[in-house]
């Protein structure tokens, strides 16, 4: 328990100390929200789907949680490069606990980042449907963060250097984002896209956020919740297994 807490605290401290990075990582979600948001708004409106800013804001929050949790998880690579990883690998603590501590730390950072993005969205004109449902929205943010921090740690355990990071970004993280329905509604999609979007765990995260923030739901909140919990358990198990197999 102490080990989990120590590793968690370390991740959170590192995040809070990297102020420049916190601000810098706001840029991308803001471009999606403001440029894409206002740019596509007229078309979206004409198609009878309502206000695009309202629609895309939960997607942008989910996106920032996805990116920061994966990055934070893959931070394992930096620790490999700078050596701190060894210190945790020889510690007399089951490696699964180290992995869980790291993952929870990364997830916490992602939720903080998501909260920051949500705040900026509200400043930019986004209006959540009901304040009473905000805690549930946070619940979904936490689940998304845990799922993808665990996935990030799992991937970080397998990669040997920073070159693999690009591959992960382009072939795993970006597809997860684009297939999640963060930018478009999941209704009336071509069959192939329909299948791909429904096997993307982030689709359920974004859907959950949308359910709680703007009362638009595709799968239903209980389906979203169940899928995310299963994905979290699966990725944490996978991550712990891969992390415990690391050799240096």
């Amino acid at each position, binding site marked *: 328990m*102490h*080990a989990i807490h120590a590793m968690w605290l370390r991740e959170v*401290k*590192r995040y809070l*100390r990297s102020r420049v990075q916190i601000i810098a990582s706001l840029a991308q979600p803001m471009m999606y929200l403001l440029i894409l948001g206002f740019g596509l708004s007229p078309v979206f409106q004409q198609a009878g789907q309502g206000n695009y800013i309202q629609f895309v804001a939960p997607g942008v929050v989910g996106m920032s949680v996805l990116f920061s949790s994966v990055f934070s998880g893959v931070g394992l690579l930096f620790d490999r490069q700078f050596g*701190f990883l060894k210190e*945790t690998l020889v*510690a007399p603590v089951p490696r699964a606990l180290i992995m869980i501590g790291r993952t929870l730390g990364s997830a916490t950072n992602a939720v903080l980042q998501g909260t920051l993005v949500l705040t900026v969205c509200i400043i930019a004109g986004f209006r959540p449907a009901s304040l009473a449902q905000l805690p549930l929205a946070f619940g979904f943010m936490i689940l998304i963060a845990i799922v993808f921090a665990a996935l990030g740690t799992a991937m970080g355990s397998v990669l040997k250097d920073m070159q693999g990071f690009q591959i992960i970004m382009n072939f795993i993280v970006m597809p997860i984002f684009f297939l999640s329905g963060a930018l478009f509604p999941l209704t009336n999609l071509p069959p192939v896209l329909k299948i791909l979007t429904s096997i993307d765990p982030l689709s359920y995260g974004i859907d959950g956020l949308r359910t709680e923030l703007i009362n638009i739901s595709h799968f239903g909140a209980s389906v979203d919740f169940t899928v995310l919990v299963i994905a979290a358990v699966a990725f944490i198990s996978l991550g712990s297994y891969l992390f415990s197999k690391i050799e240096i």
Partner: protein
Amino acid sequence: MIRVHELVKTYGEFRAVDNISFTVPPGEIFAFLGPNGAGKTTTIKMLTTLLKPTSGSLTLDGLSPATHQTEVRKRFGIVFQDPSLDGDLTAYENMDIHGVLYAVPARLRAERIESLLKLFELWDRRDGFVKTFSGGMKRRLEIARGFLHTPKILFLDEPTLGLDPQSRNQLWGHVKNLNESEKTTVFLTTHYMDEAERVAHRIAIIDHGKIVAQGTPDELKTQTKTDSLEAAFLALTGNSIRDESANAGADNLRQFTQMWRR
């Protein structure tokens, strides 16, 4: 305390560690010497559960790292050859997280961290981020950290690399103290033969993954008919290089200057 039997580690065709056997009794300071790439660090990684051996057996305190990983990890401390600190944490935080991972109780942890940081003259900089430290300071911090949980076995992989003579002296002083007062078994590697000769009870010399000689410093010198450990080391490991490049003169000269420096 450490028992290694016919240990082998191969990477594809390359035999990094080739059938080595040795034992280190409790309370001994054992130096593992060899040229770069001889297999020292690979051996330490296998002893410290970071690598799985290809074949052969090893036990620490009677326990096999393969079956009792956590138990084995509780018993040793290690100072790695390359850095293993978190640069975004302060010196104190680096010590503290180590203490937590090794289950040192909070009060004892605070006391020991203070005394070790004072001992290694880092107490004034305890709240400084490690990334702002000089090479020597980082090294001292790593060594202080290795002492924090009073391990039964201490692995030191080239701990004095990049340290000034003052810090090196001080470090070996601490290691000897710890060995005498707590009966800590010490397994060290170094490229400084004078250090090995001064602190080690016994020495094994490894080259191309094989142990070429073992014994006390005196035994090694007698065996090679040399008068210093450095000369013995060169006699045991330097042959092939000397024969190939035929620069025996340079080696003699090096020995010569070494003698004059004393």
